């Protein structure tokens, strides 16, 4: 049970599972978003967009949970071997990643809410998700579509940097930064 929460030296299972679950769906959403707007079959495109919306709302729920857990838990400091520059920038990068994780589903939700197509959102065909209370117009739709687009590409650039940093720690610096995000037991001692 003790391994569920974070401690002063390591991540607990809750943080780890949320990180990988959100991380996987997040990258999946980028690929799905990229593919669906380039699909020539209108039917397939429609269905992929509905799936993208369903996963987006699931993601929004998981991210709120993740941020709440993060705020209510200790965060293990980086291992002592990590240099000052990274010690300063890593938390900023993580903060930016959290901001993207919130901003992407919210901008997507705004986009479908203001769209003049008025397509309802029904996550996994389970229930009707209400629209955000924003006035619909073609102008608002193209604004949120480009906001969503810029956020998606900016976030995936940061995620790529984030992955490179994790791989660098593991394979070049050979420290515990990646392994402690994999299991609670293998790191921090």
């Amino acid at each position, binding site marked *: 049970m003790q391994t569920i929460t974070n401690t002063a030296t390591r991540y607990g299972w809750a943080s780890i599972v949320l990180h990988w679950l959100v991380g996987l769906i997040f990258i999946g959403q980028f690929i799905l978003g990229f593919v669906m707007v380039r699909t020539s079959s209108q*039917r397939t495109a429609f269905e992929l967009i509905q799936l993208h919306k369903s996963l987006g709302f699931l993601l929004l729920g998981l991210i709120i949970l993740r941020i709440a857990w993060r705020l209510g838990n200790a965060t293990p400091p980086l291992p002592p071997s990590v240099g000052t520059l990274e010690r300063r920038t890593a938390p900023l990068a993580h903060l930016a990643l959290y901001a993207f994780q919130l901003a992407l589903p919210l901008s997507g939700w705004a986009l479908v809410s203001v769209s003049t*197509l008025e*397509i309802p959102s029904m996550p996994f065909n389970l229930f*009707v998700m209400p629209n955000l209370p924003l006035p619909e117009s073609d102008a608002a739709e193209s604004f949120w579509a480009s906001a969503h687009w810029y956020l998606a590409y900016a976030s995936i650039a940061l995620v790529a940097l984030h992955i490179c940093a994790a791989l660098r720690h593991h394979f070049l610096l050979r420290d515990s930064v990646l392994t402690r995000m994999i299991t609670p037991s293998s790191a921090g001692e």
Partner: protein
Amino acid sequence: MHARTLGLAAAAACLAMPVYAAVVLGDAAGSYTISQAGSAIRFTIGKAGGGGFDGAFARFKGTIRIDNNDVGRSKVDLTIYPESVGTGQGRIDAFLRSDAVFDAANSPEIQFRSTSVTRTGDTTALVTGRLTARGKTFPEKFNAELDGLKGGTIKFHVTGKVLRSRYGMDVGTPLYSNVVDFDMTLTGRRG
């Protein structure tokens, strides 16, 4: 005051009805060509969470034949060109025309051929027939109500529900209802 006026109007309407029907039986017989002017083929599809979207077909053609002695032997033929669908939203129109829904490029016509007409009232009838869309044919029923007969022009109000999934147009269910509500005004000119 209002109630009395309404009551009088209702009584007058009841009295007038059989007369109207009698006139119709004698006078309506003949062949009519459906004219786009004065006709409209509208439809509505309900949406999850309320509301729905409306559309109409701008181009169609057809004939109505009313049998002199036996209304049951009357016939209706209707051909709709799905390319002409309009909802007031260009992106939705393009989607409806595409192979996601009508596939208008490969199936340019939607056809209805009546197989039987049954009178259900003085001015109403149930029209049963075969609807063909995207190469699939199923029996469908529509309610027709005589809405006017003047000179060589006859007007019907036709309503009916069609399940779109049977015609390979199930895209978007259950977000959008499987039931398409048709509401048509068909004006025919004799000849």
